[in-house]
């Protein structure tokens, strides 16, 4: 068989060499794509704009009086907001998996896979693009909280750090949904499983109530739930209290999530046909 090589030296081909960090540029280009898409379809932002506001208002005014144990919603707000921030951001991570699944169904990823680009670029690009969605949900929820009277009680610096930590946690956790988004056939399937996981994780925690009000078996679950430690760290930074221990446990979870699910996602991306 002839192995004669075609002189295929298009200009772009030559320009691509000697770029060790090309994958970063490619990821940023694909993140840019996701941002342009968001601007094109602003209604797709409902889950990170109106939904957090509705949740805050709902939990604060409907359950606030009952949960505050004799107090009013004013007393509940400082407790609720850091927890609800975690729940909102964690919930919005599943959108990343749903979006990826959709992209695959539409065939745009086959185009990316036929281009000489890094394998991780489309996935990292999707995650980075969604970081903007997560950030938006943080800004919206915190602003609403401030309007209702919430204040950082441990200094603005720690308050902002808390926002960064929850953003970083979302960026770590979304690799689960990236992986499932590539593994499962339909976007509905991704969403279904995501809800099954998210509800116990966020409601079976200290997001809304004090852990010591829960029955023993549930306390046992809450004490291994990473969401609890993230919420503890958030409250520590925003309101005062222990920061170091819950923050370290949270960071360990973040490293673990990325270490396990990012490689799984990349493998699923390679295998997906």
């Amino acid at each position, binding site marked *: *068989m002839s192995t004669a090589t075609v002189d295929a030296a298009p200009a*772009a081909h030559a320009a691509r060499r000697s770029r060790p960090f090309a994958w970063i540029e490619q990821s940023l280009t694909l993140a840019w794509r996701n941002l342009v898409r968001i601007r094109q379809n602003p209604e797709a932002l409902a889950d990170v704009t109106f939904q957090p506001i509705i949740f805050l208002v709902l939990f604060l005014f409907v359950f606030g009086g009952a949960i505050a144990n004799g107090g009013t919603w004013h007393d509940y707000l400082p407790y609720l907001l850091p927890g609800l921030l975690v729940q909102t951001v964690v919930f919005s991570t599943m959108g990343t998996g749903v979006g990826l699944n959709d992209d695959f169904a539409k*065939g745009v990823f086959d185009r990316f896979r036929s281009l000489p680009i890094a394998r991780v670029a489309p996935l990292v690009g999707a995650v980075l693009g969604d970081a903007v969605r997560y950030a938006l949900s943080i800004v919206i929820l915190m602003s609403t909280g401030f309007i209702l009277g919430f204040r950082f009680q441990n200094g603005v610096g720690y308050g902002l750090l808390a926002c960064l930590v929850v953003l970083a946690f979302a960026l770590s956790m979304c690799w689960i949904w990236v992986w499932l988004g590539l593994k499962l056939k339909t976007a509905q399937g991704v969403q279904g499983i995501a809800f099954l996981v998210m509800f116990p994780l966020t409601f079976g925690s200290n997001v809304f109530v004090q852990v010591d009000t829960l029955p023993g078996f549930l306390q046992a679950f809450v004490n291994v739930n990473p969401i609890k430690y993230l919420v503890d760290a958030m409250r520590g930074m925003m309101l005062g209290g222990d920061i170091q221990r819950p923050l370290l446990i949270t960071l360990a979870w973040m490293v673990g999530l990325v270490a396990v699910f990012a490689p799984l996602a990349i493998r699923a991306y390679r295998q997906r046909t």
Partner: protein
Amino acid sequence: MSTTNQVAIQAEGLVKRYGSTTALGGVDLTVPTGTVLGVLGPNGAGKTTAVRILGTLLRPDAGHATVGGYDVVREPGKVRGIIGLTGQYASVDEDLSGRRNLIMIGRLLGMGRPAARTRADELLERFELSEAGDRIAKTYSGGMRRRLDLAASLVGNPSILYLDEPTTGLDPHARNGVWDTVRNLVLDGTTVLLTTQYLEEADALADSIVVFDKGKVVASGRPAELKAQAGRQSLDVRPAEPGHLERVAAIVTEAVGVRPTVDVVNAVVSAPVTDGSSMPVVVRRLDEAGIAVTELSLRLPSLDEVFLALTGHAAEEVHTDVLEGASR
């Protein structure tokens, strides 16, 4: 047409199975550099699977293939550097404008921002999409969409281009536009692998054709050879007045030398012919007899007929709707 002996695409014994179904059952292909290979077959024949393997999107279960001298399994990155892919699957981002789609691909290929913009504008201009360039691709018509797909696959100046059913579902005008583009690319030295359900398309564009059936190559050769193998063309005459069918049949019998089939339901007379030489005779006789016709055509064998002739069986019955579209 090409005088070089270089081989752009070489595949040997490609096999791909999905569970118990065999999509490709050992396919060999050779495409010399600078030529067009037409892969002809009905839906489900394995055309797309073959293109996906040659485009590094799918790993074969057995066999091997080289594209531009690079192995598709061992050196996929190098293959991707020299190919362009257009098909129902490798599509553009519908939520982005045509221009932004092209800029994005240029950027992904390592072009700087100004270079990517310039390249996008060039391609929009060339595919007559300049005016629509800033509209999101979702709003494009079928023909515009296909042109954008084609433009997207050309951003990196590929030397080898895969076109998977590039004109399926297009109107004749849009189809001719795609054909012209392909011809121009070939003039510039691009090697093209084209899959199609239309013999007419393969005939118009390809230097050689392979016919796929159920994951296997059942025939190959130059278009003229295949057509000869597939038998004849068909001379169809449809009188304006159904009552004239018998008189038309008599005229055609005289001109062609064989008794034509008379389709009373569709009011059409068809005779198998090897070339168009009997056409003028038929026209003259009809004129002399004062018989008006609504259709007088010399038709290439349809994919159905090619299939019947080459494989001894019709293309899959389940795809009859598509095939009817194919035979016009």
